């Protein structure tokens, strides 16, 4: 079953909007969590926790390269595809 990227992106943005308490127009795939939204380490840990619960995946602590919302979506899509194989 193909993972629907748009759905995942919407859900990720929902979570980011709620957790970072920002308006939806400020969150696009290009939005960087730390630089643009001012996320600190606890915010990141909390977002990871929410993603894990929302998508039932496990995101390793040392996962690097996830800086933007789009990076997070890509990572989750990859995880779900690997899990589905």
């Amino acid at each position: 079953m193909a993972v629907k990227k748009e759905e995942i992106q919407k859900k990720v943005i929902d979570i980011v909007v709620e957790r970072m308490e920002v308006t939806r127009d400020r969150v696009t795939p290009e939005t960087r969590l730390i630089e643009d939204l001012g996320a600190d380490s606890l915010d990141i840990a909390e977002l990871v926790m929410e993603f894990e619960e929302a998508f039932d995946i496990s995101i390793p602590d040392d996962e690097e390269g996830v800086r933007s919302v789009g990076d997070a979506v890509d990572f989750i899509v990859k995880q779900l595809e690997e899990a589905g194989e």
Partner: protein
Amino acid sequence: MLRDGALAGKWALVTGAARGIGRRIAEVLAARGAGIVVADVMDEAESTAAEIGNEYGVNVLGYKVNVTDGEAVKGLFDELKGKCDGGVDILVNNAGITRDNLLIRMDETDWDAVLGVNLKGAYLCTRQAVRPMIKKRSGRIVNIASIIGMMGNAGQANYAASKGGLIAFSKSVAKEVGPRGVNVNAVAPGYIRTAMTDALSEEVREQMLLLVPVGRFGEVDDVAGAVSFLCGPESSYITGQVIRVCGGMLM
């Protein structure tokens, strides 16, 4: 005992609550209206929970669990997410043991056992409990330490290290989760009257009491009262602190 209903709608998990101080802590929180989860390595976990439910008319759950077993602890807290409105609101890390001996006679198993239950157990439970608390933007964690963890005690190097560690752990976690509405504090009892102190000779007890300005051993209720305070709305601006319940033995 306060029966103000201030904890109505909350769930409190107390480790080591099958008997002794832990059980009394669970009762005091139940009296204020909290649902209670009794977690204990002893078989009585479930029966104690049922007794508290009958006596105080609150929802209760009882689980036999070893707090040093990371998988078991995770399993318990996963289950509680469904049963306790997303997760417990209050965690009291009370489970503790002693294996006293002079350092030169203290072997590795005595060290590991005490550090395992008293410190690692608190870490494992707190790590699981804190996630839903962060999510709810609300939570209280109380760690039962000891003034021995602050002043040391000959023959208790392992116990003192575990309790001192628990205090430092409390402060660190308090700093991490303070911005998310979760308060973390420690209670440090001194000499509390228990079956153990009752069994001491009159002479030994008198010697011990010379160190206690108020001139008596503490009661289990003295400890439970401090925990109740740290779990209630009256202490919302208190975090990272150690409340000493020791009759002035350490000032």
